[in-house]
């Protein structure tokens, strides 16, 4: 989906700002973006920080992990443990709506978010 529109790569933080296998929140153009350093897999993900369940600004503080045979990467909201796919943003266990995901790239020790 994102590929269709050209994205602008915005530098947001250093790789060392995000704990290995954890997340942190960054302020990007006034929006709260949760960035995850999935060090175990050498992957980076970014999503909205707002959990749609009870509108808590908390996803960056959630635990990441994987689900199922296909090891779909996911994050669990620290509030009530709703989980969301880091790939698609889909909610994996309820009727909550999907969350927005953003492309991420790392160059040197800089982390960039792709902004559409």
């Amino acid at each position, binding site marked *: 989906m994102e590929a269709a529109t050209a994205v602008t790569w915005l530098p947001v933080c250093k790789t060392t700002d995000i704990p290995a296998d954890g997340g942190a*929140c960054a*302020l990007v153009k006034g929006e709260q973006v949760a960035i995850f350093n999935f060090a175990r897999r050498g992957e980076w993900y970014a999503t909205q920080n707002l959990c749609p369940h009870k509108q808590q600004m908390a996803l960056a503080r959630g*635990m990441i992990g*994987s689900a199922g045979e296909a090891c779909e*990467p996911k994050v669990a909201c620290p509030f009530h443990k709703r989980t969301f796919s880091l790939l698609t943003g889909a909610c994996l266990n309820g009727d909550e709506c999907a969350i927005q995901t953003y492309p991420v790239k790392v160059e040197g020790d800089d982390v960039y978010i792709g902004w559409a």
Partner: protein
Amino acid sequence: MAAQQLPTVVVIGNGMVGYKFCEKLLAKSTAFNLVVFGEEPRVAYDRVHLSEYFGGKTADDLLMAPQQWYHDHGIALHLGDAVQEIDRASQTVHSRGGLVQSYDYLVLATGSSAFVPDIPGVEKQGVAVYRTIEDLEEIKAAAATARVGAVLGGGLLGLEAAKALLDLGVAETHVIEFAPRLMPRQIDAAGSAMLQSKLEALGLKIHLSKATASIGGNGRIDALHFGDGSILPVDMLVISAGIRPRDELARLAGLEVGLRGGITVNDQMQTSDPRIFAIGECALHGGMIYGLVAPGYDMAEVVASQLLQGARAFTGFDMSSKLKLIGVDVASFGDPFIAEPHSRSIVFEDAHSGIYKRINLSPDGKYLLGGVLIGDAEAYSMLLQTVNNKLVLPPHPEDLILGARGGEGSDSGANVLNLPDEALICSCEAVTKGAICAAVAELSVTTVDGMKKCNKAGTGCGGCVPMVKDLINGTLMAQGAYIKNVLCEHFDYSRQELFDLLKINDIRTYDTALNRFGSGDGCETCKPAVGSILAGLWNDLIVKQNVIQDTNDRYLANIQKGGSYSVMPRMAGGEVSPRQLMAIGRIAEKYNLYTKITGGQRIDMFGAHVSDLPDIWEELINEGFESGHAYGKSLRTIKSCVGSTWCRYGLHDSVTFAIELENRYKGIRSPHKLKSGVSGCVRECAEAQAKDFGVIATEKGWNLYVCGNGGAKPQHAQLLAGDIDQETVVRYLDRFLMFYIKTADPLTRTAVWLNKMDGGIAYLRNVIVNDSLGICADLEGEIALLIKNYFCEWKEVVDNPELRKQFTHFVNAPKVKDPTMKFETMRGQKKVAEW
């Protein structure tokens, strides 16, 4: 493949049942050419949940499937175009828009329209019916300016409409019913009386045995005139007086229709023309129009099966129903009215709480025939199952409505797991108990949502969702008990097994544990569980591996509504000096924190920004405080009473002992939190017997109690040893706590742990007091290590710049606080703003 060679099935009507027919046919075969005509401007939507349109759902939320779905499945869909003629001779249908479409099979799913009685004045403005989204828009517009509204009809739909008017803010809403009781088709007179008083409490005004003679007003409604001469001034009226099957097309085409409407069908849902079927609310089967969605879905299934030469037939359907949305539970099932001598009834009535329940039993008391539930319909699904599956009743059938009153297995008759496999759980989607349990056992479906995806159970009216949940849990539990009690999908071990493995292999990080003994990348279940095991083994600094901790342990504070945190320093035994009190007051004021005395005899400060936490703790530590571990699965507080120091009854010094114990076990991680109390005498002011461990002074020493619990399922602690001295209390406690830390399942409090233990307290006493397993020396050694490794976690963070840095909301703007966090003032203190 050339599409024209496939037989063409034309569906007239794109309502709930018409849609379901397409879905069911496609699931069975794609060897048809499907053409659908719908008169409404949008694709089929969920009429059952129509009222939620007022509650904020959009028309799109209610769609059965998006328009794209029809396209993706090759269905030719003509919306906003009604069929106006069926030419049976040439096998074609003609639409209002001028389309001519030939068919091999024709399915009429034209539904019904609201029945509008022939009352003078019904055409006036402000009079609406309740059937389509457009009707709802009209009602919404009228309600915006109406002060008094009325609903004509006190049936299932009428009451739903009346509640909607209330919710739309119509100040005064009346329900007018011609019959002498509400919901005359479903409930008896006594149930109606109870329902009436409940609805009146909600603000509805109910008029029974009231015939409406005419509708007054000059172009626009202004009053209802009744047969008895009385007049009720109203600004709007919703008519909900029943439904009228839409058989006009069928009539025109010369198909057989019923005397009072409805397209006559046989058990195969065929009309008098065998190529033409009728399903849903337009079909008349066995002299009956079914105004519910589940029988309509069953009819759709029958036709789909017929087209594929299947043998499914429709043989009638149960009319049990449950009222939703109204704020009062109402349900009726089976035969609600059957009376002596064909049955005997048991009635339970509690006027005070507004509960009325009636069950009708077979004369021999063995079977349930039907009943009515008002005020509390929790048992509905189970009772319905009991009727439909002809389950033999337990010896005390009254328990079905009163709840079991103790005694082993007295509720066994009412357990979903006892239903036969063929029991229909989701009648909308025809999913049986067997199918649900198989999905759990064989396809590892473990959530209701997963089940919805897997076999659609629970996606229709939603009434069966609680049962689906029970079946999933029941099946999982049965598996857990007989198969394996594993941590989660990533670790094939129980907590106790993993505890031993990590100990023997000297494993100290989550990642090594996962690499050696697990699979995948872990999750929110196994990460904190392994974190707890590692802490129970080595008591290392928890924040060194903070990303595997639950958020409270990661930020060493309890996260709260809105995303702020609470700060709770330790006050061992509940003792605090005036100086410390002043320090707390000063610090709370400085950081603008709300303060409260907790139920655990200490002070909590709420509403801290994550970035302020290290500064707040730095000041607290400078005043001599340390972490209270209020966030951890660890020792919380040991409450004390004033004891012999001040109290005239005090036998020993309970405060000193409580402080000693609290300082001994503080900071140690356990499967769940630990709470304790020490009382100076049997008057028990410290509530020691409600705690995970509690000590009470006796003439000769102390009584030690264990495994008590407050919380949702309170349970008294049990005596582990009596009249023992202080040293022995400590020794037994060391053993007891370590045994719990090593063997309990994740997030299991001591009470639940004991309840699951074979042999119960006698076994536990044998292990702890008599060392029956010969492990006591080990237990004492292991806990000594944990005690020795204690440090205040907050002090470590405050002194460590790297760790401190993690306490920010924005990594790229450490000074900026979360702008979405809002507070307001209450009783002179701040609180989280509601949103």
